[in-house]
């Protein structure tokens, strides 16, 4: 970000248009279960997302790449990375996820970030 220059007491602002050139979006999500204290690991979490995607979009619709960059087992929060073209699909599949293996759960999307806003760590 460049500093807004102050000219003669009046502040001029600059409009910055950032084209998302890297092609990625980052999502910070947290998983909530009805019963508290459930422990799952990263692999299980990815499996859960893939099954959610398959439920909503089927085999072909769900076959787009995304990554689980980080997963914190304690708080069940994760950072996902997805191509721009897959963002709407991934997000809506997460929204429509209501249960997994007969247990009620929900995915809360905490943040959706562009690459330059992502500085690592959930």
């Amino acid at each position, binding site marked *: 970000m460049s500093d807004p220059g102050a000219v003669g007491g009046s502040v001029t602002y600059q409009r910055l248009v950032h084209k998302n050139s890297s092609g990625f979006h980052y999502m910070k999500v947290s998983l909530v279960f009805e019963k508290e204290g459930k422990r799952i690991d990263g692999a299980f979490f990815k499996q859960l997302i893939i099954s959610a995607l398959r*439920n909503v979009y089927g085999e072909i619709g769900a076959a787009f790449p995304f990554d689980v960059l980080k997963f914190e087992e304690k708080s069940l929060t994760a950072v996902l990375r997805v191509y721009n073209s897959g963002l709407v699909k991934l997000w*809506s599949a997460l*929204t429509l996820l*209501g249960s997994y293996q007969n247990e009620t759960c929900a995915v*809360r*999307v905490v943040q959706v970030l562009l690459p330059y806003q992502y500085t690592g760590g959930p």
Partner: protein
Amino acid sequence: MAAFADLCISGTNDKKRLQSIIETAAHLGYSTVAINHLVEVQPKKQEIGKPKCVSELFDHFPIVQGRSRPIRVLNRLTLVVSDTSHFRQTADFKFYDIIAIYPKTEKVFHAACMSCDVDIICIAATEKQPFHFKRPPVFGAIERGVFFEISYAAAIKDSTMRRYTISNAISLMETCKGKNVIVSSGAEKPLELRGPYDIANLGLLFGLSEGDAKAAVSANCRAALLHGETRKTALGIIRTVKKSQPADEREDKEAPPSKKAKLDAM
């Protein structure tokens, strides 16, 4: 930017559950929620009854995340109507902030769009819409400022319901082109609620454009609320008309000067 609102939270007698739903809604960033009271209208029994006072629910309403203001809780009445003659405006309406109608047949849908004094028309989420959305009633409703509501809780619970919800929504969008649509939860449990931005994204699946999808959880909800408010407040209209001007002034303004000059020359 208008604040986010969820205009349909299933009302239950379980006070604790209702509290936890409202707390979750505040945490997700909704500034306004409405507790729904579902009433099946029968021809003989016309009792609707008063809603419970919302101030009994909390001593202090939970603070909306990111707004540092307490959440606003309203009462909403949904009438399930299967025959046009069953719908009658009663005195009980004034206890509710919003009146919604869930039409079971095409005839009722037509009447709800064109003449009934309601704010919201519900679209079926748990079954296939039994009739086709025709253009004249839908446009009539848009003209009158009545909103169409899609609720998404059923879509989260079950995959068959999801198909019904999405297909009904898409067939509505074919007709109304994304205008006057609101999306609300209809949640019975806190885990059935989703954040406002999630819903704006979900709106894209329903065939809304990005702007319309966001309006469906914010601006349109506010408009529906104001529509409900006018039922209680706006009792008459005063119209003022300017009196006609004196004769000598009128002559001067008969034709602009440039045209007059042209006539003289001819």
